[in-house]
């Protein structure tokens, strides 16, 4: 194993310096670099395949972040260049893309993967190629210990922390008797398991687990299974039939329904004022990042929207109907800023410094809410390679999502399941 010359302390000091460098508009662009060659970041993009719609917004956010970083002087005085390769949202293709980054394009790092099965398929290749692999997928796969030391998720929180952080608010404000409706496969099972444990820890209980077959497109027959004393209905339906689900739920309950809580994943990029979604009025959603600009909007969120080209409703500034994937795409922005901070902390010069870069990121801890982290403050866990941050709960009012609660970061924490720092490079 190559001897590492950089101590954790010096890395942290470097990170701080990097932050200052970013913040200063007076720094001459790319002036201080030992090399003027660009930092190459391989962007594993879901340009086609089932993730294409997400890939489009991840692409827009990535372009905006790189533009902002370059305008602020780049990384270590070098410009950043994105090399986007389409993985077709396919794990096998994803692994090929990572290998191309390493062997063909000579990228410094790989970044941007969203879908979990592509992360699973690509991470081994990243490990073999010794390529730092920064994923933006929300999966629990990184923190669960199933991947490797080269794979990190420093820009977006994972599903386990998101789900468990909902339980305190739900139990204290909406009710303790919960019925869960979820699709009957791994995704739904994750929600079932994580939330059931979390609500029980809050003194609540799940009265009924209603698992819906993935191929189902009509749901009315399942609703009579909802116990009458249900206080909160927790739903995480996904797929093309989700609008039908909402419509039928509204028809079933009419005006007298229990409190309803869901994950915005079900309706990410769907206009909530769409006909048929009136029933959502007054219901609650988890949001990774509030889609609608709130009354107390930070300047960071405002700047982020302006940079990406998103209006106060979370839609494209060029088409109000083109709603973004706002709850997730900030992850690309924040991850790229983490890469920048890490490279500056490690005094990254080239691929020979990849291990130093990973150690620099592992050494990170607090990330203040800032232009680099517009979603909110975060804490990075270097052992599990996973970042933790605030989660938001919003209520639909007037066809818009109004934030009613922000969790603490502590609400999202859970015991470490792995220590990647003990693994060899």
């Amino acid at each position, binding site marked *: 194993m190559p001897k590492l010359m950089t101590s954790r302390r010096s890395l942290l000091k470097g990170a701080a310096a990097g932050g200052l460098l970013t913040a200063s508009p007076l720094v001459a662009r790319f002036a201080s670099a030992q090399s003027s060659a660009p930092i190459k970041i391989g962007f594993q993009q879901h340009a086609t395949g089932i993730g294409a719609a997400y890939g489009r917004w991840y692409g827009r956010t990535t372009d905006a972040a790189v533009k902002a970083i370059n305008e602020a002087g780049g990384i270590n005085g070098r410009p950043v260049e994105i090399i*986007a390769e389409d993985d*077709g949202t396919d794990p096998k*293709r994803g692994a090929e893309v990572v290998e191309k980054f390493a062997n063909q394009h000579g990228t410094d790092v790989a970044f941007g993967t969203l879908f979990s099965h592509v992360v699973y398929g690509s991470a081994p290749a990243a490990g073999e190629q010794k390529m730092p692999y920064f994923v933006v997928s929300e999966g629990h796969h990184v923190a669960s210990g199933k991947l490797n030391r080269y794979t990190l998720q420093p820009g977006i929180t994972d599903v386990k922390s998101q789900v468990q952080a909902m339980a305190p608010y739900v139990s204290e404000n909406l009710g303790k008797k919960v019925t869960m409706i979820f699709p009957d496969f791994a*995704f739904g099972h994750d929600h079932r398991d994580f939330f059931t444990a979390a609500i029980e820890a809050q003194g609540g209980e799940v009265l009924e687990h209603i698992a819906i077959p993935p191929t189902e497109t009509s749901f009315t027959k399942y609703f009579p299974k909802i116990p009458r004393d249900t206080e909160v209905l927790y739903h995480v339906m996904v797929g*093309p039939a*989700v609008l039908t689900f909402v419509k039928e739920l509204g028809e079933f309950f009419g005006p007298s329904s229990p409190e309803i809580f869901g994950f915005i994943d079900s309706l*990410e990029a769907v206009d909530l004022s769409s006909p048929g979604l009136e029933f959502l009025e007054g219901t609650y959603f988890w949001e990774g990042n509030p889609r609608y600009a709130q009354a107390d909007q930070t300047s960071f969120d405002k700047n982020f929207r302006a940079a990406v080209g998103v209006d106060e409703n979370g839609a494209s500034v060029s088409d109000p*109907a083109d709603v973004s994937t706002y709850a997730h795409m900030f992850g690309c922005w924040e991850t790229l800023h983490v890469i920048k901070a890490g490279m500056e902390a490690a005094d990254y010069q080239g691929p020979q410094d990849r291990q130093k870069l990973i150690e620099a990121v592992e050494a990170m801890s607090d990330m203040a809410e800032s232009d680099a982290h517009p979603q909110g403050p975060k804490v990075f866990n270097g052992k599990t390679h996973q970042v933790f941050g605030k989660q938001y709960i919003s209520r639909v009012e007037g066809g818009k999502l109004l934030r009613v609660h922000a969790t603490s970061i502590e609400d999202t924490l859970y015991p470490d399941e792995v220590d990647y720092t003990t693994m060899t490079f």
Partner: protein
Amino acid sequence: MRVRIFLFCVKLMVCAPGIANAHVSEQGFVLLLPTGIYTFAGVSVVALTVLALFALPPGAVRWLFTYRSVHAWKCPACRHVTSLLSFCFFAFLIYLGLFGSRNPLSNLMPLTFWTVGWVALVSLSGVFGNIWLWLNPWSGIYRLIGPQRPLMTLPQHLDLWPCLALLVGFAAFLLADIAPDDPTRLARFAAAYWAVTMLGVLVFGPNWLMQCEVGHAIFHAYARLALVRVQAPAGVGGPGWQVHQAGDYRLAGLFALLLLGVGSFDGINETFWWLGKIGVNPLEFPGRSAVVWPTLTGLIAAITALVAVFAGTVWLGMKMGGCGVKFTTAFSCLALSVLPIALVYHIAHYLTAFLVNIQYTVAALSDPFATGADWLGIQPFRVTTGFFNQIDSVRMIWLTQAGLVVLGHVWSVLLSHHIALTLFNSHRRAVLATLPLSLFMIAYTFLGLWLLAAPKGA
């Protein structure tokens, strides 16, 4: 795990390469539309058309497909010039594929090949005729450097077999390859195909293009439906008047059936129904690499089943009509009547993808080398899919697709009757002989509208 099955993970339009752009809300809104009523209405229109054939006087259908001869536009040099220009552009695309942007949505190689060529130009050939005669990248070069006479002659019995095989191969690439829109991969395939074809043309002469170049075969097939034909024998007539052409290849009908089979499977393989059949959770599509063999098997099965069912309807019709025509002749001629269905399937299936990817194409034209240029002065240019987020625009798109599908089937019913009149020379025999075929087309209308309305997950 969650991101794997986000709402968006359900790809809503197509899984064809380079033309894939999913949006969940479009599919979600389609499921909210009264598509059952729309489907019933569409199938009824086709069924009523079949019934009307019994009542119509024999001359009515013939009149629909009458045509008038006009002077052919003779300017072979013009075609050679456009072909040479097309070759230059093709070479530029190959360059971009090999050395341009790695993103297929900002690289003109896959965008031009799939969105402009496969989706748009093929569709337009049903209106404007065989534009491939003008745009193919071989005939101009052959004119410049080819020998006066072909060095060798293609055997007549080869017929269109090479094109049939190439069409299946192309469909396999389209539907089953794991990265057919990768710019480099596509450029290599296209360059290799161009080189082999060029060699074939140089050795065997222009006949190679007619029998062994699948682009010519596809455009030639759909061009039969155009109102106007400018090359000899030129004419203007009801859409479909060109279906019978002197010197037709015997397998032209089978080729039309294969076009329909490929188009149909391209829709079927995205549905919840199909994914369920191959054991894939439609909310958790594992990627194309995981379904290569099921896709290939399904493609072959769909084509085989279509040809078998069609042959069965023709055989049954001949029994009912008591016709003295050879089965193979009837099959070949009547199979051409599915061309309108195949064409409208093509247009309807790719319409949504086209609406998105033509935007990417415009953006790439403005910045072909992905260097941040803005040659067309369109910046800030942002691709939008907002029209999939509103039920009114989704309804309009869906009804356009459904309307096309119904129109195509009505057109096919009439065309098959017209062909049968020519074949059997009797209105009564023609009606009886095409009755099973008409029932087949009614059923196919249902299939087409069901495909548009069905939930999709790949």
